[in-house]
């Protein structure tokens, strides 16, 4: 007999596995590529965008899941867009007023979140059909998965592009995080292609191909184990 708490934990674990790997916003759903390509010139910018998006994602999931009982399919899309846009504006205003230093660092990213189709995508395919707790966990998992891919892509572009890693992290996270800023290649002239959008496409292509290869290997190994057992 399985304990109900364990069932819920297993369920959450599956949601996180989906969000981070199996059904990752970028690597599997291929959504949110526009902000992804725009801001991943450095790992720090990727992290900033990821954190801001995660917050909006969770809040949107909560709100939409709570309202799912009264929203009809015919008007759901405009209602979702309205809610997400209002939420982003709200976050922008509140951050500007009470987290001014952070807003100066993240401010450029916040308007980009509205155009992030991943949030609308999750609202449509998950939050609007699921109980509140699952929707919130899914929003968090998707946000974490999005943040991870943004940071990885940012690092993959930043290291060959500028020779640094997490440049300007102290502006985003505070002076306590100055240790994160690494200069990997001193006196580096920079490799412009990686910083510009084509570099983002190239790096993303390699990451996607890498995931496919890894997934195929894992599937093959699982199949081999099954064969051996049978």
């Amino acid at each position, binding site marked *: 007999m399985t304990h109900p708490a364990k069932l819920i934990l297993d369920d959450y674990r599956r949601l996180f596995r989906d969000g981070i790997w199996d059904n990752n916003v970028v690597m599997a759903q291929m959504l949110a590529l526009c902000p992804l390509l*725009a801001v991943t010139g450095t790992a720090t910018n990727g992290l900033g965008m990821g954190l801001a998006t995660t917050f909006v994602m969770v809040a949107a999931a909560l709100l939409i899941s709570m309202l799912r009982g009264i*929203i009809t399919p015919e008007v759901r899309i405009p209602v979702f867009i*309205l809610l997400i846009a*209002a939420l982003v504006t709200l976050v922008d*205003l509140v951050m500007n007023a*009470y987290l001014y230093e952070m807003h100066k660092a993240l401010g450029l990213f916040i308007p980009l979140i509205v155009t992030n189709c991943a949030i609308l995508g999750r609202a449509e395919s998950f939050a609007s059909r699921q109980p509140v707790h699952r929707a919130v966990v899914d929003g968090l998992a998707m946000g974490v998965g999005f943040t991870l891919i943004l940071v990885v892509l940012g690092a993959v572009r930043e290291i060959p592009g500028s020779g640094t890693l997490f440049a300007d992290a102290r*502006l985003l996270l505070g002076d306590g995080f100055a240790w994160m800023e690494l200069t990997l290649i001193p006196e580096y002239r920079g490799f*412009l292609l990686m910083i510009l959008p084509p570099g983002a496409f190239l790096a993303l292509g390699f990451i996607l191909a890498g995931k496919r290869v890894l997934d195929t290997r894992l599937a093959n190994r699982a199949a081999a184990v099954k064969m051996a057992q049978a």
Partner: protein
Amino acid sequence: MTTVAQPSYRQRVGYHSALLGGIALMASAVLVITDMQTRDTIAERQAEDFRQTLEQVIPASVHDNQPQQDTYQLQTADGSSLEIYRARQEGRVSAVAFQVTGRGYAGPIEILMGVDAEGEVLGVRVLRHKETPGLGDKIEVARDPWILSFDGLSLGDPPRDDWAVKKDGGIFDQFTGATITPRVVVNAVRDGLELFEQHRSTLLQRGDESAPSALAPPPALLSPEEPTS
């Protein structure tokens, strides 16, 4: 998932419009309330920010007054007016600061620059911009020392033709991947210096004439706004 049977009233157009309208109304109400709640705080933070930037473009060593309180509207040739912040040493105008705006890659770049009485740049800082994160945002002093390269320059030094980015044959560095942004800033600062040159006598002399009247009101203005400094 299971499809829940929809009550029949939900099929009506009226319900749809009421739902959409109701949610739009609620969202607007929440935003209006938040805007009213945060507006003053945001304005305060921006004023504080502006004061700090002002201190960076007019170093404390060249003045003994409060440049933020000592303002003057300069009528420019195109009919608009420009707010001038005057720094004084013993009543004489030792430097002025004013805003210039360049048309950046993604919207206006608002720049605050300080110029001393000889027409030399004391400091340049970007107040607001919407340039691409990671490329154009190197004009912020917190990210890159580039903006400091204007310090000590004037219209004659370097010669006028050299007031451009290297790509255009000037002396200023452009950034990797971003030429438009630094070009806009260089041009805006040069325009600012030209404006100073045009109105030099007005800017500096004006200060002397109106010194007593301009110095008189600050105590009343100062007390409620800046009790600490």
